[in-house]
């Protein structure tokens, strides 16, 4: 915090300086990997922060390999399906938690809190064997299930926090007019709750998109390997080629959606992240 007696000009300079530090801190690693992805094969190891020769060939390379395209499809498909199901289930549960009195509410909140803090690695060994026996190993559902499970607590918290802010008199009014609780939920509350639902969908998507541990433990082939897992197997287009450029290009491709989310929905993401966590 600046000294409050400092002149406005000095405070301005101070804050400019602090903000520049923050921005450089946050962006430098991202810009660095982007810079690597634009370097030519000859200059990739020159250690320069900015490419001397710019090229798009790394991007061309990865989109020509099955390995990456397949992984990208897996990533998108798995993350979208998991997000959709998790948010649907969480919306129902969060409505009940925020609005209804019922035995077992504490247990539900408690269990989801436990799962939020659960060490995921503890599940990997047993899930590996269970999925192998059920035939879920190395399939989309084999990843979607753990993703749903681990994003449900986050989604339930965020959503029930949002739901508590909704003007519920409207629901009462709808009930007065003869709507059942279920109808009141669908017709009146759901539209009001849409922004909250959307926010938790973004958070859940980021979580699924990000996962590496499950992706690398519960898959064994291109059938279901997502991009983060595939990246760690990248060897470049030929076996003897240094994969730095291609890994960087692939990394940039999967970073783009995150950057877009952050740019467009910054306010919502902040609200969602802090809603469940600090109140209580």
């Amino acid at each position: 915090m600046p000294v409050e007696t400092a002149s406005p000009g000095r405070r301005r300079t101070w804050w400019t300086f602090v903000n520049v530090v923050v921005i450089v801190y946050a962006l430098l690693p991202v810009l660095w990997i982007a810079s690597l992805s634009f370097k030519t094969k000859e200059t990739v190891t020159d250690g320069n922060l900015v490419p001397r020769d710019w090229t798009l060939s790394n991007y061309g390379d990865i989109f020509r390999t099955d390995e990456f395209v397949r992984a990208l499809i897996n990533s998108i498909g798995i993350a979208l399906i998991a997000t959709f199901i998790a948010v649907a289930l969480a919306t129902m549960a969060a409505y009940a938690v925020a609005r209804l009195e019922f035995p077992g509410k504490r247990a539900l909140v408690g269990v989801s809190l436990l799962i939020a803090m659960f060490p995921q690695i503890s599940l990997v060994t047993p899930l590996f064997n269970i999925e192998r026996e059920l035939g879920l190993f190395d399939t989309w559902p084999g990843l979607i299930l753990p993703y749903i499970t681990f994003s449900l607590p986050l989604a339930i918290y965020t959503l029930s926090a949002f739901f508590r802010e909704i003007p519920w008199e409207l629901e009462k009014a709808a009930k007065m007019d003869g709507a059942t609780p279920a109808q009141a939920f669908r017709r009146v509350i759901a539209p009001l709750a849409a922004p909250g639902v959307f926010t938790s969908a973004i958070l859940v998507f980021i979580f699924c998109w990000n996962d590496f541990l499950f992706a690398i433990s519960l898959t064994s082939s291109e059938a279901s390997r997502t991009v983060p897992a595939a990246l760690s197997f990248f060897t470049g287009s030929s076996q003897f080629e240094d994969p730095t450029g291609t890994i960087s290009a692939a990394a940039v491709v999967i970073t783009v959606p995150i950057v877009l989310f952050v740019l467009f929905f910054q306010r919502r993401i902040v609200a969602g992240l802090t809603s469940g966590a600090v109140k209580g």
Partner: protein
Amino acid sequence: MTSTRVRRGAHSEGKRSERRLAWMLCAPAALVMVAVTGWPIVYSVYLSLHRYDLRFPGQQEFIGLENYAVVLTNSYWWTAFGVTLFITVVSVAIELVLGMALAITMHRTLLARGLVRTVTLIPYGIVTVVAAFSWFYAWTPNTGYLAEAVTPGSAPLTERAASLAIIILAEVWKTTPFMALLLLAGLALVPDDLLRAAAMDGAGVWQRFVKVTLPVMKPAILVALLFRTLDAFRVFDNIFILTSGANDTSSVSMITYSNLIQGLNLGIGSTMSVLIFIAVAIIAFVFVKLFGTAAPGSSAQGGGR
């Protein structure tokens, strides 16, 4: 439960249908969570009491606590445990300080507030593996800008101390924004009047921070610490990419993973799973009991704000 709703005297039919609706709404989520976590936990306890090596499927048998004896007398396990604790404590401590600075910046900054908040969300959102590769190449001799500038002529990722420092750097970079956001929410609860009153009484910037801001923020700080400690204890992605556990830099997650994929020994792997689970439970218990961290949502009816 027994908590009173106003329409107590009203016909209990409405109440029963409310309860039924609530259960129906919660059932799918609860079922998925229990099926995907509850059953595997029980199963891993079962597996941990058996000799179960996928390479020798015929030799499966009940062996009591033998697996636990094997793991708990293994020096790799304790090294990994020590590394995990070290990374957790150091990175969370740094994150708390940096996160607080960042939160204050976001709270007080006069210009470009939206820009600062947007930018700090990028490390939170970015795929950990991507960030890990960025750090990996940055510290690779010749290729990286940091390797050339900071440690010319050596390969930091082949030395234990340097590797651990880089892993912590990567963790801190990635998670400080999240810490800052949690703290920012706590910071917003500090009443300006209180700060002004303290300033009137002659308290300096630092005094106001220590005597007013910190005590008011204590619950938010503890929750943030609890979340981040448990999260840091799971550290895996960064280590996998940066060192693959070379030079004794494996965390407990890393060693469990390698045991599963390379060793295919499910008995030992499950034993490690159970031990990690117990360690995490102890950490959470310590936070809740000793520091009185109020778990978010623990007040059944936390609403109304």
